[in-house]
Structure formats: C-alpha cells, structure tokens
C-alpha cells in the first residue's frame, strides 16, 4: 500500500519503478492480442479446450447431494423432504386462514368454514393502521387493501399474503436465533458474517436453481427461496442490535442474578426491540421483493399473475394491475411495520385506548368472518362488484404504442446504435488476458500483490468456466447502467443536500422506489421500449439509482460546517467550494453509494433477463426452466464473484482514501 501512497519515498530517492512496469505489462496484455491476432489468438479469445467444465461438476455435486449423500440415519434427500414437508404443513394454516378456508367432506353436504372475510380484514387493517400511525396510515392501509379487493386481485393477493406471513415469521425467528447464536458464541461470528456477505452478493435467482432441483417446483420451494433471501439481514440486525444494548443493562442482568436465559429474554432482547423491529421491516420488504421471483418456481399468487402477463403478448394490462396489487401490499406492510418501530410504550389512558383499538380491530375481523357463514358475499366479493382496469391498461398500452412508439423507438435505436452495441462489441471482443491484466493492475495499485491475486482469481472464473460472452454482456449492461444511474443520481443527491424541501421529496421518492419489488420496474419499461437491452437498461437504472442519490445527499450533508466556512473564507465561489472542498470530502461516501448501485444493478440484471437480455441472468433463467442446476449455479457464482470484486475494490479504495484524510 505504501508504494501507492508514497511513490517517492524520502529514504530511497531512486527506487525501482514498479508502478510503471505494472502499467506497461497491463498495456502489453491488452494491446498485443489486438496487434498480433495470429500469434496471440489464444490471448484474445479464450480457447474452448481450456474451459473447465465447472457447471458439469456442480451438476454432479448436486446429483450426489440428492441421491447419495447420507448422514447415517437419514439421507440428504430425506432431510430436504422433511423440511419441505414441514413447511408444506405449516403453510396450510395461513392458507386456510387467508385464502381457502376449510372444507370438510365431499361436494354433497360439504361443510365449509370460510376464510377471513375481506370486509373484516380491510376493517382490521384500517383500524390497526390507525393505531400504529394515525389517520394517514389508516387511509393508506384502507386504500391499499381496497384496491386489491375492488380490482379482483383478492384471491391471488391472499395466496401471496399467506406465504408472506409464513416466510416472514420463519425468517424473523430463524434470523433472530442465528443472530443470538453468533452473538453468544464469538467463534461462530466470523463464519456467520462471511456466509452473510456471500449470500448477499449471490443474486436471488441463483437460490432458485438448486431449490427446484432438491425440493421441486411449488409454493414450498418458492417460500424456502424467499426465506433464504430475506433472512440474512435479520441475522445481521440481531447481532448488531444485541451489541448495541448498553453494557449497563448487561451488568444489571448479572447483578440481579439473572440466569443466562433470563438475561437474554428478559433484558437483552426486549432492550434491543427497536433495532430488531427494523430487521423485521427489512425481512418484510425482501419477502415482498421475492414474490414475483418465487413465482417462477411455482409460488403462485400475485407473482404468478404478473409473470404470466409478461409472458403473454397482450397481457401487459393485466400484469400492471397485478403488479400494482403487489406494490399496494408492499407499501402497506412496509409502512405498518415501520410505524411499529416508532411506536413507544405509553401508560394510562393512551395505553387503554391502544388496547381498545386492537380489540376493536380483532372483533371486526372475526365478526365479519362469522357473518360470512350467513352471507357468503362477505367471504368472496361477488364478481359483479369488482372492477377491472385490465381493459383500461390495455388501452393505455395501445395508446402508448400508437402515440409514443415512434419517439420511444427513436430513443431505443439511438441508444442501441451509439452506445449499447459499440460497447458490447468492444467488451466481448476484448482480449481475456487483457481483462485479467487490467483487474490485476488495478487491484495491485489498490492493495498490493496478495489483493491483486485474489481479485484476478475472481474475474478469471468467467473465461475459465466458459461464460465469456454472457459474462461480458453482464459487465457491459451493468457498467453502462451504473454510469447512467450515477450520472442521474449524483446531481439529484446534490440538489437534496442543498435544500430541505428537495431532501424531503427525494427521501420519499427513494423510500417508494425501494419498496417496489424489482420485477415491477419491468412492466412500464417493456410497455415503452419492448423487449431487449434498452428496456433492461432503463429498468436497472431506475432500480439502482436510489443509493447514488442517498449517499451523495448524505455525504455532502456530512461535510463539517467549519470546512465549508474555511472554503468560503478562502474566497471560493459556490462552484469552487463544491468542487474543491465538499466533493473531495464526500467522495468516499459517494463511492460507497456507487458500490451499492453496482450491487443493485447486478441483482436487477438477473431479473431483467426476463425482458430478453443475453447475459448471465439469462443463463440462470434458462437453467430454471431446464432444471439444469449446474449451469444456473455457475452463472450465479459468476455474478456473485463480479459483485465481490467490485465491492472489495471500491471498499479498499474508500478505506485508503479515508485513512489518508484522517477520517
């Protein structure tokens, strides 16, 4: 590191110019394959005979897992069957409650216990929202669920909701327990953190492939994928929350003679309530984010409706309707759980009123459900009362096609011809040896030889596993969208840091953008730009822009006032102060935002393969439909490695920079 920080060391005035040599080697590795394609063809296109059949190995490994692995008393297959059976049974409970009700006997003289009545549920959600967050939240809760009801999304939404509830409960319970375990057993902590880091860079889709293989298609594997995806933040939050409990409370527990169990459940966990509830909110958000993705492996519900619509030629209207129902569900559940974090204990009359509201809500829920024994319309809203905007949306789509098509198409063609295609061609034709050399050189400059070796190994996975074309397509789409997202997000964040109103507005906008499941972004984009790379690009930019805005805003706001005053007193103009004082100071923070943008772009890339890109995401998607776990996993690993690569490189840069600035 010191070589980089202090290129001219005082004690060695004429030291060996390692930096120049590394730069020269990198340049050679890039240029030579172009200059002499005949003798160095192997360095330009990765030779097929050097490809290591990693996907085949992974496939064989999974086959071995599922067929031959035995723990003595039971096999791996028994275990997966047991787990999926367990969740299958557990899922029956919320499913009967929210979606199907319970029917005894055959069709003749069957006795039916209705599901929770829509009227009761809407009333309960409204009242409980009022309890949690006052009139505004009540209106939001009512509107959200009313939308779902009136537009005929109730049945699907309840299938989804029952899965969400079970997934959230399992994710929260499992995450909390794992977090407690890692907190209690320091030796486990390192392993858990490493596992979490890895799981958060693996794209969601990659979970689906082995799950389909091991558990099969259906709601259970959809739910398991959701839990795997949504649980890691809960583990992290639990560990952090327990560590943040004031040490005096831990001492109190010991001084009052608490047994370890009492200390944990009576003191530590309740004291960490607020932080833990933030984790619950995260689990809910991630669970809802997975709704549509999990539907690819048979989760059903709203996700299936959206997916189905995307697959059909003219289904966009229906898809938007179902997509909006997902959004409504997500926003309502998000805001309710967030309000729960803010809810403070009160005493006396206020507490009594809260209890009263809770019971009134519950009474409304159960009362309406009881009434629906007599009035079936309360269980299922008759079709004639429902409204469908499907036609309206189809009309919108046609109108867009007729009126905006030429404009959108012109933009699309322009982007393709002048930006996307040239970059893509350039990157796919880039010599693989050159790519490795560029990564190695950059990593060396940031963190020395060992770091360079690790980073190069990560990038080498792409050519070695035979994923060059798809991998480079991923890199190309990712880098262009990251650049655009940053170019859009930076000025927005800058505006936010300058004015309170803008700050508030952007905050609300970012909140909403983050609440939307990634898939939802695809719907309007496809409507405008059809299938293809441009749609993917726009969707990724929209989805991944949020951290660029947030971190820029935050970073600039954190510049100490004294520093700004120093700039002004030195006679800076506003622009000079921004460019010479504030931006350099906030740059590490902004780069962390860019890092987040890259992570989000990578995860969105996989989702957007649904609209016709030909990258690693596509391979995962194909693998799901072909049930080829090897291909899916290797593509998933490649994306994870790209994520880790970017994360470590940027992280190293930020750390060095902060150290140098003494932060």
């Amino acid at each position, binding site marked *: 590191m010191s070589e980089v920080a202090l290129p001219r060391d005082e004690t060695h005035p004429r030291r060996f110019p390692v930096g120049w040599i590394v730069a020269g080697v990198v340049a050679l590795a890039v240029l030579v394959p172009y200059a002499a394609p005949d003798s160095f063809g192997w360095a330009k296109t990765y030779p097929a005979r050097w490809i290591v059949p990693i996907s085949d190995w992974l496939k064989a490994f999974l086959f071995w897992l599922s067929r031959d692995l035995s723990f003595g008393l039971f096999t791996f297959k028994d275990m997966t069957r047991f787990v999926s059976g367990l969740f299958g049974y557990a899922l029956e409970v919320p499913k009967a409650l929210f979606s199907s009700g319970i029917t005894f006997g055959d069709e003749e003289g069957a006795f039916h216990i209705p599901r929770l009545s829509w009227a009761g549920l809407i009333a309960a959600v409204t009242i409980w929202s009022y309890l949690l967050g006052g009139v505004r939240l009540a209106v939001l809760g009512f509107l959200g669920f009313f939308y779902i009801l009136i537009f005929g999304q109730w049945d699907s939404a309840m299938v989804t909701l029952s899965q969400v509830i079970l997934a959230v409960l399992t994710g929260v319970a499992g995450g909390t327990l794992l977090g407690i375990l890692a907190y209690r057993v320091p030796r486990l902590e390192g392993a858990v953190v490493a596992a979490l880091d890895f799981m958060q860079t693996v794209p969601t889709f990659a979970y689906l492939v082995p799950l389909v293989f091991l558990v099969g298609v259906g709601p259970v594997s959809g739910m398991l994928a959701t839990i795997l995806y949504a649980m890691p933040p809960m583990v992290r939050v639990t560990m952090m929350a327990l560590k943040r409990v004031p040490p005096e*409370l831990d001492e109190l527990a*010991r001084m*009052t003679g608490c047994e370890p169990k009492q200390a944990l459940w009576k003191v530590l966990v*309740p004291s960490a309530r607020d932080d833990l509830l933030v984790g619950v909110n995260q689990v809910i958000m991630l669970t809802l984010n997975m709704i549509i993705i999990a539907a690819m492996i048979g989760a059903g519900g709203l996700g299936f409706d959206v997916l189905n619509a995307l697959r059909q030629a003219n289904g966009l209207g229906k898809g938007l309707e179902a997509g909006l129902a997902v959004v409504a569900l997500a926003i309502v559940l998000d805001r309710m759980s967030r309000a729960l974090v803010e809810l403070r*204990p009160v*005493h006396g009359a206020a507490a009594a009123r809260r209890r009263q509201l809770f019971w009134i809500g519950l009474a409304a829920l159960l009362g309406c459900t009881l009434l629906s024994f007599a009035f079936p319309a309360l269980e299922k809203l008759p079709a004639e009362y429902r409204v469908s905007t499907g036609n309206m949306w189809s009309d919108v789509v046609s109108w867009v096609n007729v009126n905006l098509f030429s404009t959108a198409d012109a933009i699309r063609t322009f982007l393709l011809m002048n930006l996307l295609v040239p970059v893509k061609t350039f990157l796919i034709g880039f010599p693989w040896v050159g790519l490795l050399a560029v990564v190695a050189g950059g990593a060396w400059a940031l963190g020395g030889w060992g770091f360079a070796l690790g980073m190069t190994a990560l990038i080498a996975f792409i050519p070695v596993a035979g994923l060059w074309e798809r991998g480079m397509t991923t890199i190309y789409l990712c880098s262009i969208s990251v650049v655009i997202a940053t170019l859009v997000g930076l000025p927005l964040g800058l505006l936010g840091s300058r004015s309170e109103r803008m700050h508030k507005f952007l905050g609300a906008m970012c909140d909403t953008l983050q609440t939307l499941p990634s898939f939802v972004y695809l719907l309007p984009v496809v409507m405008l730009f059809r299938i293809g790379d441009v749609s993917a690009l726009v969707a990724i930019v929209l989805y991944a822009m949020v951290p660029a805005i947030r971190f820029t805003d935050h970073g600039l706001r954190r510049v100490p006032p004294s520093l700004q005053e120093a700039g002004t007193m030195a006679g800076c103009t506003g622009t000079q102060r921004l460019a010479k004082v504030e931006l350099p100071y906030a740059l590490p923070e902004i780069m962390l935002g860019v890092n987040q943008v890259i992570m989000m772009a990578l995860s969105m890339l996989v989702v957007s393969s649904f609209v016709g890109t030909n990258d690693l995401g596509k391979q995962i998607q194909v693998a799901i439909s072909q049930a080829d776990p090897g291909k899916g996993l290797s593509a998933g690993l490649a994306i994870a490695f790209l994520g880790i690569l970017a994360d470590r490189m940027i992280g190293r840069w930020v750390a060095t920079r902060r150290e140098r600035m003494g932060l």
Partner: protein
Amino acid sequence: MALVSPASETASIPAPPAKVRAAADAPPALICRNLWKIYGANADAFLRANPIPTPAEVRAAGLFAAVRDATLEIRQGEIFIIMGLSGSGKSTLVRCLSRLVEPTAGSVFYEHQNLLRMTPAELIQVRRHKMGMVFQNFALLPHRTVLGNVAFPLEVQGMGKAEREARALQMIELVGLAERAGYYPRELSGGQQQRVGIARSLAVEPALWFLDEPFSALDPLIRHEMQNEFLRLQRMLSKTIVFITHDFDEAIRLGDRIAIMKDGAIIQVGTAEELVLNPASDYVSAFTRHVARGKVLTAGGVCVPVRPGETLAAAVPATALVAEVAEAVLASEAPAAVVDADGMIIGKLERATVIANLVGGVQ
C-alpha cells in the same frame, strides 16, 4: 479556669450533622485483599510470574492494570466512598468487588465467603438476595413500567406476581414515585429515573448496596436533592454501602470513609477530616485544597492545648464541625472550650482558627 456548664451552652449549638456516622468499631462486612485486575493477553501468567509488578513492568509487558493491589475493609453499615478521577480504576474496582469483572488475582470476602471461589450458581444466589446496584446511567429496562422495573429483580428470583408487585410498590413509595408507577422510563425525568433505579436496587432488601456514580448524570440541583434523599434512605435502612464518585464534595457530604484511587491503586483511606488534615500525598492534598474545610474539620480536630489559667468561653462538642460552631465561637472574645463526650475539656478553639478554616476553603 472558668468552667462553663456544657449543658447550658450546647443548646445554642446547631443540630448534629444529618449523616449517621457508622460506629468506627463495626465489624468489616466486605473485605478485599491484594486485588488485581490486569487487562491484556496472558495477564494471569504475567501476574503469577511477578506477583507485585511495578506500573512500568506492567506497561512493558503490553498490559494495562486497571486495579493494582487493592486492599480494603468495608464496615457493616458504613457509607464507603471510592473516589477518583475517570480512568483511576474505581469502576473496575467496584465491579471486581461484585465480580461483574473477574479479578486477575486477590480475594474478596463477603460474610466470610470468598466471592471469587463461588460457582456461578452460588454467585447468582448471593446477587439475588444480598446485593443491589445502582448504575450511572440508570440502566432502566425501556420496555417495562416503573413497577415492572422495580419488580424485575424479584421476578428473576421467581417470586409470584402479586407478592413482587406489592413489594415493588412499597419501594416505589419509599422513593416518592407512587403516582408514577405505571409510567415508562422515557416518560420520566433523569432524577425520577434514578429514583426508580434506587428503588429497584433496594427491592430485594440487599445487605450490600453498590452505587456506581449514581448522581453524576444529573444536573447539580437535582444531584443535591438526590443526595439528601440518599442520606434519608440510609438513616432508615443502614445498609453497607460502596459508593463511587468523582466528586470530592459529594464524597465528603455522604461518606463515612473515603478511599482515594489513582492509576488503579488506592492511595489513602480515611474520613474526610483525616484526608484534609493528613493527606498521604500531593495528589490527595490537591483534591482537598479547595474543600470547604469548615464543613469537614471538627472542633476536636483543630483545637489546640489550653494554657493554664486561660479564660474560655462557651463549650463546644469535639465532634461538631467547625462551620457548625463558628457563630458561637466568633460571638465571644475568649476562645471556646472544646469538650469530649464526657464533658472534659480537651482543648480550645480560637477565633483565628475558625476564621482561617472557614476562609481557607475559599482560597
């Protein structure tokens, strides 16, 4: 020599100090001997090889000694103050005494049992029934009401709900918060929160009461009020108290005896008067220099021998503080006679001495 009847004069002397002085001959309740707490890798082995290392040796080994060779005897029913600046090791010492922090070496005896040899189960029993602790930042459980917080130590013991809540309510009344029993900690002021902390620590009726800078987080007016409250409680309860503070005025006001700590070691133990009159080191005298001496020194402590044939005015008891008798002494031309409990004259208190000690604290 004109003897003045002490009985006629003591009427003009102010009431005795609010503090209840623990009998100096009470048996020790808590004893620690040669207690060490060293932080760092292999501190155990280091101390085994070199049982009494100098500070330089500890530093050279890359270790940090938070408590160095502390030996104390805390008497039954006394208020024992451990006083030192931040980083002096007083918090660590009190945590070693309660075994919240495991000492590296030494022994701690409570009721003839070595706390450091106890199994975790025995320790839990001692803490549940014999010890109470008040924390600097209150350490109230945010999710429990005042009642729930005070009942908590009883709940942990497994006491039934009705019984523990009745007992907790008594404690809450004792600290004057009966009307706030249903409130949550965040709805209370700092002073009220610490009253809850005090009530909670007393709920199990401990014989041994630890207070870790209990009033440091409060503003001065509230602090004074809480100190009075603390003295009132101690007059009723007569616990054995270990009280930590960094405030010498607080130490003087509350303590029967004071131990002064510096860099992990105990420099001097004594009553406030002993510390003021015979400081063991410059460090101690630096603390005592700005003390209002009139409120610390007694007539017996500063009196001088009587010359034969001298005329003495009103008699003052030897145990009275100089500030308390100042008015009486200054009112007469002749020096005051200082008498012991039996009415015998042990010396005289001159006006100049009174003035010097009253003004001395202000210099």
